[in-house]
């Protein structure tokens, strides 16, 4: 089972700010695999540089690669698919991430972002918050 994790999951998970997010990171490769669009990978690194410093951000970058998370450039997603989601979400980066989830046949997109949760019902993938995703896994 492949899953897309939004940047907030990594930020909360790696800083230990939210237990459900840390638990998800611990289960990568055990219960599911993660595919990540390049833009989310960059966001995680940039945000952690700001809030934790460059060394911590580099350590997380190493951890993401060590967890065998597949990072794919979202430019590979067909334009028509991104347009389809842009018509719903009206924000290019969010539309690209949603299109990426569909294109990679991800079963879930996990995010604490309520905009995603609200706008992406009845899609080929399910959008869940961390706690709900942990419940699905148990």
């Amino acid at each position, binding site marked *: 089972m492949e899953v897309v994790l939004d*940047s*907030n999951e990594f*930020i*909360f*998970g*790696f*800083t*230990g*700010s*939210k237990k459900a997010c*840390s638990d998800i*990171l*611990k*289960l*990568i*490769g*055990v*219960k599911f*695999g993660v595919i990540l669009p*390049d*833009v989310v990978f*960059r*966001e995680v690194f*940039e*945000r952690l540089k700001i*809030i*934790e*410093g460059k060394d*911590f951000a580099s*350590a*997380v970058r190493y*951890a993401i690669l*060590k*967890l065998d998370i597949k990072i794919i450039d979202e430019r590979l997603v067909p334009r028509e698919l991104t347009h389809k989601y842009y018509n719903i979400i009206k*924000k*290019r*980066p*969010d539309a*690209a991430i949603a299109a990426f989830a569909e294109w990679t046949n991800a079963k879930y997109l996990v995010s*604490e*972002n*309520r905009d995603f949760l609200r706008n992406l019902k009845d899609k080929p993938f399910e959008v869940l918050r961390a706690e709900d995703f942990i419940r699905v896994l*148990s």
Partner: protein
Amino acid sequence: MGEMVPINLRLPRELEKKVRSISYGNSTSPAEYIRSSIIKSLLKLEILPNIALINALNKISKRKITDENKEIEALKKLRERVWEEKYGSSS
């Protein structure tokens, strides 16, 4: 995901009944319930390297985020910036 490891398990009758009752109550099969339980126990033992890695990073993190909504708003703004840096403002 790793390789498949088949396991044959004979449970005492009372335990088997209990497992069946819990698993069907959770809308899952007894085999999947046992598989999940084994994974949870292994995770508790922290024998998976992922767990040590995540726990270590959690310990050295100097900033616990207490305002989730504020962080999500900050990430939304960062997303726009990272997108613009990669694709330019015309995309």
